[in-house]
């Protein structure tokens, strides 16, 4: 997280006792009472506190006010209250926002105010007669981990822009703040590069329809910014790059069968200067297109068999004195790449193999732990990574593309990210985690119900206090949250038998 104080303070002259259980994720501190106040939509307004650092004209908040007004009351017309009812109750007619540090036009830094609005919206409820209420409540909140991410994979299946934007909406509802965009991979290259347009022309599923244009990318970044979400883009190399090949001749390693090229290609060719020239130009573009400080450089699952088969690579290995240790060749590639990216003033995240294979990386590198068991259990891996003083992100237990029968969100929920042996300093190096929705079996037909509300379990684990682990309590609130998602038009699947007042309707 880019440092801004992740604190918010919500002081309302209102609240609800039983109703407060609809909150997801659960706040750090909450006190509620039975005292309830009606809210009349036509009177209600969001206001900036006079001493707030943010004032009207702050686009992020102005837009958020509008958004939450619609979410709370619907955009249609609400009937006027019965004047008799109004007389003897004190009504709530404003939510006053006080922002301590400015940052309206920066990248996500008003996240705290955003999250506060979300909490407020979850506190409002509606009586059977249709009146909106909020109970007297005092909440103090801040996230446990600064990096609360969700990964989408737009290479195995292309996801239409609307699916991505829709996901960003729900991420905001559950207080995720990093969208990890696994943009390209072996099957397709949908990112339209302006320096190398051939990459999408030759590497996308369909260069007319299955691509993300510069405009699309800008829209995603801005939509995310308005919701306090960072966009962490991943261009995975040197493996997982088959789709780069057709549009960048010479970039991939030609595999050999005996003494002849077999016609197939392996990882990025690490022995050619042209490779690094290409990467310099490409990542210069990427660094300017994606404003976040961090880039994800991948580095996972490099298959050595093709490199081994190639005589030029064998020669290079000899020359460099790598012997038969192809991990050294991988290190050579990654180090060169990291130098390129560092020169652009970017930080980087990599998958754990880069650490496991002992690539020399800068001390501020973030290592993402994704392997559940091998080479070591993920808890052990966290211990090793933080012991080497690197910051760590946890994903291993949160591969939501893996599905099983029944309420599998419980297993996801009960993961304690800091349950490894280590000093407090080590624990402090775990900056958060990510729920991953890989795309082998997921596209826009099934993304939403597969993701929600299961990803909500990860969201709460990363936001709420370590002590919030009661499954019954969580079940009840998550079921309510899921119904709230349906009310907001999100196709979130059920947790168990039951119903929501407003069910999902096919369009």
């Amino acid at each position, binding site marked *: 997280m880019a440092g801004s104080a992740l604190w918010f303070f919500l002081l309302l002259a209102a609240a609800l006792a039983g109703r407060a259980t609809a909150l997801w994720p659960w706040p750090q501190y909450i006190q509620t009472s039975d005292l309830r106040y009606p809210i009349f939509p036509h009177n209600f307004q969001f206001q900036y506190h006079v001493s707030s650092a943010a004032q009207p004209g702050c686009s992020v908040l102005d837009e958020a006010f509008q958004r939450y007004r619609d979410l709370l009351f619907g955009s249609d017309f609400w009937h006027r209250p019965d004047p008799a009812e109004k007389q003897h109750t004190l009504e709530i007619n404003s939510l006053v926002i006080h922002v301590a540090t400015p940052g309206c036009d920066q990248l996500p830094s008003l996240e705290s105010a955003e999250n506060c609005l979300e909490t407020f919206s979850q506190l409002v409820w509606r009586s059977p007669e249709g009146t909106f209420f909020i109970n007297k409540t005092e909440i103090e909140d801040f996230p446990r981990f600064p990096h609360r991410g969700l990964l989408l994979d737009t290479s195995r299946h292309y996801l239409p*822009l609307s699916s991505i934007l829709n996901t960003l909406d729900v991420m905001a509802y559950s207080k995720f703040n990093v969208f990890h965009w696994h943009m390209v991979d072996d099957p397709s290259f949908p990112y339209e590069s302006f320096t190398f347009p051939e990459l999408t022309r030759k590497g996308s599923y369909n260069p007319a*329809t*299955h691509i993300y244009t510069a405009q699309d990318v800008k829209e995603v970044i801005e939509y995310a910014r308005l919701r306090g979400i960072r966009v962490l883009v991943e261009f995975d190399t040197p493996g997982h790059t088959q789709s780069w090949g057709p549009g960048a001749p010479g970039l991939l390693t030609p595999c050999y069968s005996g003494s002849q090229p077999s016609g197939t290609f392996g990882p990025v060719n690490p022995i050619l200067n042209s490779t690094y020239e290409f990467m310099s130009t490409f990542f210069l573009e990427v660094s300017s297109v994606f404003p976040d400080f961090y880039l994800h450089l991948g580095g996972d699952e490099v298959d050595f068999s093709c490199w081994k088969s190639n005589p030029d690579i064998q020669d290079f290995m000899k020359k460099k004195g790598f012997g038969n240790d192809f991990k050294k060749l991988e290190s050579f590639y990654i180090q060169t790449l990291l130098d390129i990216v560092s020169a652009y003033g970017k930080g980087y995240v990599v998958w754990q193999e880069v650490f496991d294979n002992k690539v020399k990386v800068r001390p501020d590198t973030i290592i993402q732990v994704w392997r559940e068991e091998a080479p070591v259990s993920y808890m052990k891996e966290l211990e090793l990574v933080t012991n080497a003083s690197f910051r760590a992100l946890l*994903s291993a237990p949160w591969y939501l593309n893996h599905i099983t029968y029944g309420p599998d969100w419980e297993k996801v929920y009960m993961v304690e990210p800091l349950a490894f042996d280590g000093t407090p300093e080590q624990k402090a190096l775990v900056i958060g985690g990510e729920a991953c929705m890989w795309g082998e079996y997921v596209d826009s*037909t*099934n993304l939403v119900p597969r993701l929600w509300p299961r990803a909500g379990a990860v969201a709460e684990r990363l936001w709420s206090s370590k002590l919030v682990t009661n499954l019954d309590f969580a079940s009840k609130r998550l079921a309510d949250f899921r119904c709230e998602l349906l009310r907001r038009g999100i196709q979130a699947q*059920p947790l168990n038998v039951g119903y929501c007042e407003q069910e999902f309707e*096919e369009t």
Partner: protein
Amino acid sequence: MEQRGWGLPRLLGLLALLAVQVPRSSASSYMGLWPLPLSVEMSPRLLRLSPENFHIGHDSSSTAGPSCTILQEAFRRYYDYIFGFYKWHRGPAKSHAAPELEQLLVSVVLDSQCNAFPNVSSDESCEYRVSLLVKGPVAILKANRVWGVLRGLETFSQLIYQDSYGTFTINESNIVDSPRFPHRGILIDTARHYLPVKTILKTLDAMAFNKFNVLHWHIVDDQSFPYQSITFPQLSNKGSYSLSHVYTPNDVRIVIEYARLRGIRVIPEFDTPGHAQSWGKGQKDLLTPCYHGHTQSGTFGPINPILNTTYSFLSKFFNEISTVFPDHFIHLGGDEVEFQCWESNPDIQKFMQQKGFGTDFKKLEVFYIQKLFNIISTVNKGSIVWQEVFDNNVKLQPGVVVQVWKYGDYAKEQSRVTAEGFPVLLSAPWYLDYISYGQDWVKYYNVEPLDFDGTSKQKTLVIGGEACLWGEYVDATNLTPRLWPRASAVGERLWSRQDVRSSQDAYKRLTVHRCRMVRRGVAAEPLFTGYCNHEDRV
């Protein structure tokens, strides 16, 4: 960060890449046929179709004409499926050399059954046998009844594709088709979660695309009673999740008619004596009061089998059901009856003694079910039951259909049931609510329904099967992608010849078929990495 070693998916992944690289235009249309017809002869000669000129109509020899609503509706529907979802430019494509296919003429040979409901027929192949001859300028679709025409239209629509210039194209072909099994069902469960009528109708659409012909509507269960009864309105007033979570008589009529127009039977299931908690709320004294020691515990068990009022209620109730649902069969459930509550109840203990049942509560269950069978017979309906009814030695009348659902040793169960001469429906290997990572459709596809010990006469008693999507974790949000295309695997198993077994070939065809379903508005999930041509960005 992706785990490797998922075995089959990787192998199939290679196929997927291959499939993707073959442009749709040069791919054989054969690839897109699902389920695979009985016999397909396809010539390389191409015909083109123009949306302005092409027409589906009645052949002069047909026993059906423009007054046959079921066909008129189907002609319009299939015209839309063929042309409506594509982008096409008005004006003839003059440069195209291929001869034109101008018409599809439909001919019904026997009594058309235009105004009837689809039924389980004694001679299925006769009912359904359909031949499709595609030759310029007129293609002929011939079937004994309208039901065969519906299946033939689906096949015809699957033969047409757009070449790379956007021209609608079909190969000259000769197809003969009929289903392997007459009962090809999908079970939906509207009790664990209420399904909006729209979702049910969408499911019926998708069923027709896959040549399913039975909607098994597990309409009520412990959790809720959404069926609005005319005779006993309190059942849904008190037993539904909410007053908006009900199926009114009009909703039910809409579902039945929508299904009929697609050649699909609707078989309602009213499961008793277990799975009936929700009945208790709106019908006093129907359920057995459970005891804790000498006092009533306040909870209730299965339907109370010892009271006359129970049977007079059931008579009236099923009398209504028999008129509301036109199909010959009613599913009576009969599964998973828990005996503890009956055991705890002193009145029931007394009754057991009186009847000489000892402590064998299965005998009490049998007693109940027999009386229920008699009620169903008096309203002239046939019964389907879950396998427990057979397992518990209930004396079944001939013709009662036994649905096999328990996964362990289901082949043995099929042997036993058919050995006693009862028709069997297979569901055990097809519980689609059980999800797992990866391509589990292959598992469903590889099932061979007649792979059990028995004489050939026994095998003929297997009338088909059903894919079941129970509702514990399924509602309108995830039903469609969870059901399709996984249920399509069952669809082909029940329709196509026994020797149509190659999952590699099936993968190719099913990938195309899945994209076709998506194009027609059914959010069928992907089989594996890849894309559909028509997907656009919005």
